[in-house]
């Protein structure tokens, strides 16, 4: 080929290349203008993949911003609204996640379409992948706070006649572990649930805390159950059923009569229409039907009392069955709720897969159990079981309580770790004693009790007022109420002496008060 022709061809190639990339670069603005003026769609929507489920950045209000911030605000807006955005992001996601198996932002792709989640390094917001890799560690203060919370809550519930269950709900990142890509799959570490299990080894709260992760992971590894959905963190219908089954097993430790509704893999038309009792999978949801169960009205005092606790309209579901049975109160988060009902469907109705033995179920969203909650909840009726659920990945967030609640739990926790004092004990030699006073059938009215309400044998009067801490408690009719307080250096023969509660209003008194004394010694834990 002669050089003139070769130069012409080269020039043509240059023109084509320059024109192509100029047009490509300008096409975004052209598409936006065409969309704005002519209504032509500015995206092809070639793939219909994951949506971001958030509002786009608004067009900036330049008058309200400093000049230095104009650029960032405009780029944030444009970054959410440029032409072909959805298509480019979806194509890029296919390349990065599906081909290269690389994390994109917080999303960690796994096999078979599984998506795991990692937190922003340092903030630990839903860090299930980091948890699997053993990157999360309880600090000493975290361990102390969890022990105090769990032991104190278990003890406080026990004192008022309630079985307490804390369910550490497994997450996809520690259950569906075979779905990780290497090298993550090959480097499991000590998860927070494992650390919690070690922490509770010698704790009196051990039996109250459910840690089913290992069991679920083993079942998932055998392919027995697909516990969680691939693309988000919620349970599958079968996984959700398994979780409630775990709760029922724990309840049966005290109440053997409790059963579960059967799970039907081939549901009958009656079950699907709600005319027969049972459970089955229906799309994303665990469908539960029980003709004997009905909703409790919205005017129910329990429902109205906790209206202020969260901003979610579907925050509580209350159902009751004819024929009696246990009253179960559950506080849980969306992971446990959304397989039963969608928050996008408003209030919705839910049934729970408990069978015979459970009569009433009351639930709350995002409510953390604490002594105030327990006191208020038991005000509205006898409660047999209190279940709290927390996702495993959120164990990094230790409970935060008001000082008053924290003090109560601290006293209860100390009592649970203490050593029983016999009637013939010889004095505490400067060591602390935690006293639990349980009042049965407390009078009607709602009167707070204060340190002055507790009377001790005359010779201990000065000692009690000098060194005791008494929790404030609201009292309710016909209820069981626990109060804990500490005494420094209880002298000999005080145990089992005539300790009593006396209110300033002589018409007010509990029918029965039982006192229990335990020597509190941190080293005896």
């Amino acid at each position, binding site marked *: 080929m002669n050089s003139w022709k070769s130069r012409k061809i080269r020039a043509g190639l240059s023109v084509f290349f320059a024109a192509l990339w100029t047009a490509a670069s300008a096409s975004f603005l052209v598409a936006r203008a065409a969309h704005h003026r002519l209504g032509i769609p500015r995206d092809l929507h070639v793939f219909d993949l994951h*949506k971001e489920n958030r509002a786009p950045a608004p067009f900036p209000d330049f008058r309200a911003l400093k000049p230095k911030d104009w650029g960032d605000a405009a780029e944030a807006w444009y970054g959410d609204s440029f032409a072909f955005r959805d298509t480019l992001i979806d194509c890029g996601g296919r390349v990065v996640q599906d081909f290269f198996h690389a994390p994109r932002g917080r999303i960690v792709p796994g096999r078979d379409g599984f998506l795991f989640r990692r937190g922003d390094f340092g903030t630990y917001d839903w860090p299930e992948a980091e948890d699997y890799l053993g*990157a999360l560690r309880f600090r000493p203060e975290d361990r102390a706070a969890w022990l105090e919370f769990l032991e104190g809550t278990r003890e406080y519930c026990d004192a008022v006649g309630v079985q307490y269950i804390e369910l550490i709900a497994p997450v996809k990142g520690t259950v569906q572990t075979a779905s990780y890509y290497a090298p993550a799959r090959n480097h499991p570490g000590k998860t927070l649930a494992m650390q919690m299990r070690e922490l509770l080894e010698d704790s009196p709260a051990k039996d109250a805390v459910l840690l089913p992760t290992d069991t679920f992971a083993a079942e998932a590894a055998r392919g027995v159950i697909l516990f969680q959905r691939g693309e988000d963190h919620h349970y599958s219908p079968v996984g959700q059923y398994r979780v409630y089954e775990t709760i029922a097993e724990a309840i049966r430790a005290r109440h053997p009569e409790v059963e579960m509704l059967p799970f039907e893999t081939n549901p009958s038309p009656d079950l699907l229409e709600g005319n027969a009792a049972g459970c089955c999978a229906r799309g994303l949801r665990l469908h539960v039907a029980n003709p004997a169960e009905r909703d409790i009205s919205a005017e129910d005092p329990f429902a109205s009392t906790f209206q202020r606790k969260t901003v979610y309209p579907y925050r509580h579901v209350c159902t009751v069955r004819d024929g009696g049975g246990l009253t179960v109160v559950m506080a849980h988060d969306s992971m446990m709720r959304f397989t039963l009902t969608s928050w996008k469907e408003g209030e919705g109705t839910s049934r729970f897969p408990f069978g015979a033995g459970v009569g009433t179920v009351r639930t709350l969203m995002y409510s953390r159990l604490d002594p105030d909650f327990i006191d208020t909840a038991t005000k509205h009726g006898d409660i047999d079981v209190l279940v709290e659920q927390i996702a495993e990945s959120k164990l990094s967030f230790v409970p935060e309580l008001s000082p008053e609640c924290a003090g109560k739990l601290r006293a209860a926790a100390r009592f649970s770790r203490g050593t029983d004092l016999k009637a013939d004990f010889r004095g505490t030699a400067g060591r602390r004693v935690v006293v639990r006073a349980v009042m049965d059938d407390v009078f009607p009215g709602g009167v707070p009790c204060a340190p002055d309400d507790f009377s001790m044998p005359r010779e201990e009067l000065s000692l009690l007022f000098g060194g005791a801490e008494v929790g404030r408690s609201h009292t309710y009719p016909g209820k069981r109420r626990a109060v804990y307080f500490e005494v420094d250096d209880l002298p000999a023969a005080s145990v089992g002496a005539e300790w009593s509660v006396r209110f300033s209003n002589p018409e007010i008194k509990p029918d029965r008060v039982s006192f229990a004394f335990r020597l509190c010694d941190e080293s005896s834990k």
Partner: protein
Amino acid sequence: MVFSTIFFLTVFFPLFFLTAWTLGALSERTGRLPTNLFILLASLGFYFWGEGLGVCWLAGSVVFNFLAARIMVSRASDAWRKTVLGLALAANLAFLGVFKYAGFAVSSLNLLPGISLPVPEIALPLGISFYTFQAMSYVVDVYRGDVAPSRNIIDFGCYVTMFPQLVAGPIVRYRDIAERMPRRSVGMERTASGFRRFLCGLAKKVLVANTVGSTADAVWRLLADGHAPPPSMAWAGALAYTLQIYYDFSGYSDMAIGMGRMLGFDFPENFEHPYCSRSVREFWRRWHLSLSTWFRDYLYIPLGGNRRGLARTCLNSMAVFALCGLWHGAGGMFLCWGLWHGMFLMIERLVRGGKTSTAASSGRAADGRATASRLSRAVLGHLYTAAVVVFGWILFRSENFAETGLMLRSMAGLAEPSAESGALWLELSPLFMTAAGAGLLFAYPVVPCLRMFLARHVGGNVLYAAENVALSALGLASILFVAGSTYNPFLYFRF
């Protein structure tokens, strides 16, 4: 505004270049003043976009240095010219010193016993190191008579503020573009060449630097918290940062050079495969050339260079590299990085005995034939340089010596890996491996060698077309990655 963002690529870039080309075509006969004015205004707008009213400092620097050069040549007296030069340089250095080094200087003084001064917190204007050095080179070149002072503040302002090289270089000398400033043509071949270079730089930055950079960042975040990574991850982090800084910087330079070409200018090359070097001296002849030559021409040589004996030469080298380190950042670790390189330059000079023979430094015998011993020397030299450079980057990246020490102990297997380092396994994806592998491969002159080889077997135009296809593929991949960086989903997917 960063070049590798969707806003720059799809809004600023097309609007700017289409306007610039249109103005250029319209002003073919009248000269480039309208185009240069547009470039100046657009560049000031570009700077305002990121810095707001900080653009006033940039404009002030342009006016000051333009006037300084004009005043300098207004009289023939050498004393006058020297005085004006001194004042101009002092003003520029004071400007840079106050904004960039005041805090560091006061913090350093506070280390002395009995001193506790309030540390000033002054916002650092974007690109101040680059445009101040550029302006200083102009006044010195005018003083030396290497270039005539600009008669037109628009042309001069266009030179200083031109956005492609404003914030990250290369540091362009006025004499390199003075001839083309008033009149230049931008044909299709030059435009295509500029696009090719721009796409190459974009791919380097987005596909390699950003990808490996996330691994480097993860490792250093861990170090900052006092947690040791396992040895494999420590080495991966060091390698990742070594690649990140090269591809980030050279990618930006390529984009700047490409855009300069699209405007009709030929900016100097800034990187020449520096990781091929077999000595630290050779490294600095391949790395950030515009900066190293600036220090050579405006500091090293005026200090005497290598013409005043070995001891003075070594002292000059150490001084230059200390300042080079500080130029990169106002911090002790940057200073140490500079001194680290200066130290090895000094050692190499001592080993060479002060010889400057290129034959000695390249390892070739006088007869040009490589022998086995020369080959092994070359390999050893390469490994030695790699070790010095990588260790230098560890100093450069770390906030303090504690981080550096922890990193080195981790690399040597002498630090117990912390449990928190488990999260690093998420970083070793096939994407990282591909980017790191490509980064390592193309750090060597693979493409030029491949081009030479293919040119002998296929026609030049076929090769050109194939390169265009490859660059287009890289450009498309880069845009996918850039678009993907705007993706920010909320947790509750479909619920």
